[in-house]
């Protein structure tokens, strides 16, 4: 089911609206193990979403390579599911038709019709099959988005701040759901977030990125036993050390002040 994702020496430069060159990713290398839950955290502008879009195939690097099971990633593929921050559901389709979209797009709907019900109950949305996206809450909409990605049985699920727009109760609820789905499906999870607690609670490893230029500064192994307790001593210690890292990172001299 799951697979190895290799990122080596990837560079991505953007030209912003003022014509300036923005170094979104600078020589980024990372190996993601099969079945791993990995989080990418960092302040805005550090290139974490850019990296996720490159893995998805929505964007291409200027140099460097991205591979999945030793094949180059050149385009998008249903084998790398993607969950957007919000609002990516098709508003004209019901919950069940949104979830069925991948099956229909891949022309395998008829033989897999019964899978829809399975995925609806997997994300706990029984009774909302016929609802339209605007009729359900934000947390439910994200669960639909996750089910929609999972029904294609991807090797990896890429999550771009899927809980960024949710309130803290819904967020905690969805985090547990995500862990459950991860265990059930045994796929690789790559989560982009700016929430340190979320990263510690969910991940096997945390990748810390820093901006200007966007690069990986540190990779932390989270070897806390599961299920994790958000208020536990080790949990808080790890949280403190990550926060300290960011304060230090910010104290480093910035290139624009160098004459």
């Amino acid at each position: 089911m799951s697979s190895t994702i290799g990122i080596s020496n990837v560079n991505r430069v953007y030209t912003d609206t003022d014509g300036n060159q923005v170094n979104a990713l600078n020589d980024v290398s990372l190996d993601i193990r099969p079945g791993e839950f990995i989080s990418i955290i960092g302040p805005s502008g550090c290139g974490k979403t850019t990296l996720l879009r490159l893995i998805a195939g929505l964007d291409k690097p200027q140099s460097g390579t991205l591979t999945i099971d030793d094949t180059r990633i050149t385009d998008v593929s249903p084998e790398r599911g993607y969950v957007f921050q919000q609002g990516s559901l098709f508003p004209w389709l019901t919950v069940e038709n949104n979830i069925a979209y991948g099956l229909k797009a891949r022309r395998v709907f008829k033989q897999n019709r019964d899978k829809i019900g399975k995925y609806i109950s997997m994300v706990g949305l029984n009774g909302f099959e016929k609802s339209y996206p605007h009729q359900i809450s934000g947390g439910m909409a994200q669960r639909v988005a996750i089910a929609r990605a999972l029904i294609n049985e991807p090797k990896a699920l890429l999550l771009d701040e899927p809980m960024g727009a949710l309130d803290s109760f819904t967020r905690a609820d969805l985090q547990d759901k995500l862990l459950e789905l991860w265990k059930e499906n045994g796929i690789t999870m790559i989560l982009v977030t700016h929430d340190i607690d979320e990263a510690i609670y969910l991940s096997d490893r945390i990748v810390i990125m820093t901006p200007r230029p966007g690069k990986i500064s540190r990779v932390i192994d989270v070897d806390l036993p599961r299920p994790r307790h958000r208020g536990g001593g080790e949990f808080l210690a790890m949280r403190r050390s990550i926060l300290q890292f960011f304060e230090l990172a910010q104290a480093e001299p910035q290139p624009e002040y160098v004459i």
Partner: protein
Amino acid sequence: MNGQIALKGGLQNAAANEKPAEKTGVKWGYKHNGYYALKTLFTVAGFIAAIIVNIVFPQKAEVEFKTYIISAFGLQLSLDINDAYIFVLFALILVFLGIGLASLNDKDKRKKYCRSAAFRFALGIALAVWDIGGTKLQIFPQPFFPGPAQVIETYLADGAYVVQNTLYSLRLYACGFSCGVLLGVGTGILIGWFPKVNYWVFPVLKISGVVPAVAWMPFALTLLPTSFTAAVFLIVICAWFQIAFLTAQGIQSTPKQNYEAARILGSSQLDLIFHVAIPHAMPDIFTGIGSANAMAFTTLVMSEMLGQPGGLGYYINQSKVWSAYYKVLAAIVIMAVLFSLINYFIGLIRRRTLRWQEGVLKK
């Protein structure tokens, strides 16, 4: 102090009101059967009044009441135009009673029916006033404002011809508008999807779109083989530009994220057009169809008035020549009913298609 007392009174009243409510089971309102019966009576009371006025009010002005013989279902019916008017009033009463009966078991329809009662009552009263002013006393300027009985005379005297012209209009509209919608949506999709088409076609559409379609009539009438195709052409272009414009806008405003999500889920390019862009553009397409529809009615009647061998516009023109204003009014009544029906059906299709928007938009 006063407020307190009023509050107490209110509470006591509420308690007192509970007892009769328990008996009938329903509060006084549109859900209550007695209330509903009264509203039904109110609805038809105006038309009953119109009948009474017609019978009781003395005929002062000199109006010729021609008698026509109608044969239907093997029966020969001799009817003067005043009888026909009363007959129509009876029919209206039956129709509104029928609607009342049909709405009996539907909560929303009941509410709507009760709310319409006052207006329907006023409609009946207006008919009575029109009858007095147009037929009984003829105080309205003649021959421009004949009474309701004379307007109905048109359908008795000229029935088959009116039907023939109505069908002609309907055929013209159906041909022109359906072609216009198909071409408009098609062009709109091409413009919205392909930047090249947008670059070359969109400005042409924008400039020619502001010209009223009837301006092209001289060309249409001389270049096209029949006057029917000429009128179809005019309706086509008036619908085409409007719908293409809005379809293109709807396609172009599809969020990038929807395309990206669809691509990752396995969509082909064609899927992106047919399962993402077009569904997203649907509300705009229907806005285009709605406004194009109104323009199509105008174009239809204008072109019928200016160069068609039939149609309601042609009928109006022909009647005007003979100063038969009662026939003009009769044709206008048919237009009002016909175009309202067309609008109703378009609205029905729109609500069906855009069911997913229910509750998002303010009604």
